[in-house]
């Protein structure tokens, strides 16, 4: 029994190149990139600095550096796209109708675009201290 399952597990299959196989590959590439990006962000902001020392002035100070703005921009772009595509994959497991899946994909694309644009506008615009 075990031998048979292992034989099945290492079987090679041809996967046609398409949107789904590109998404599959990019979930892995972006995931590997997010390990330093997201862990670095969490380590600095949540663990070392802490929410009690974060305020408007802190964000303004951090975004005074173009490097940190680029870092946050990359984090926003990769983490949110990775997350929303992951949500699409999870929901596809519970939706069997091809039509509903297409609607879901468009809805999630709009959701991703909207929040990404809001986040990107904030990073580009920066802190407005009156």
């Amino acid at each position, binding site marked *: 029994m075990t031998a048979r399952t292992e034989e099945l597990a*290492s079987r090679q299959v041809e996967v046609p190149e398409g949107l789904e196989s590109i998404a599959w590959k990019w979930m892995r590439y972006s995931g*590997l990139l997010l390990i330093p990006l997201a862990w670095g962000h969490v380590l600095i902001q949540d*663990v070392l600095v*802490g929410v009690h020392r974060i305020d408007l002035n802190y964000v303004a100070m951090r975004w005074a550096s173009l490097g940190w703005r680029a870092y946050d921009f990359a984090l926003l772009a990769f983490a949110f796209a990775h997350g929303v595509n992951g949500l699409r994959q999870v929901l596809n497991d519970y939706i069997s109708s091809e039509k509903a899946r297409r609607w879901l994909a468009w809805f999630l694309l709009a959701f991703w675009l909207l929040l990404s644009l809001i986040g990107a506008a904030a990073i580009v615009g920066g802190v*407005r201290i009156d």
Partner: protein
Amino acid sequence: MEVVRLNVTGLARYRGREGQLSFLLHRLTGLGTLLFLSIHILDTATVYFFPSLYEHAINLYRSTPLMLGEIILVFCVIYHGVNGARIAIFDLLFPGKWNIKTQRRSAVWVLTIAILLWLPAAYLMGRSLLIHNFGF
């Protein structure tokens, strides 16, 4: 009712053991992180759109329930990263190693490494919670 009960039992029992546990943990930690990230994009965006609201958002994050949630969030980000690295490395470099024996072992390693990385972070964040919210 019967359908719901069957589904729940089926979900909990599907193949079982390490593979099922890491599948569930990977999804739950990923969905949890995405939920927080969606809110976090919006609260951070207030620094540009409604700067006066940012202070209010940060005050919520300083509350005890949300600081406890933050400690759980850090576990989610660490576990999802370590397990994701396992998936990416086996998929991209060693696809032939997707067999039950290797994967059971690597799934246990992933959970162990994630907990070991999380403990010092949880300690520092827990200490910060005690100092700021309970006057230690």
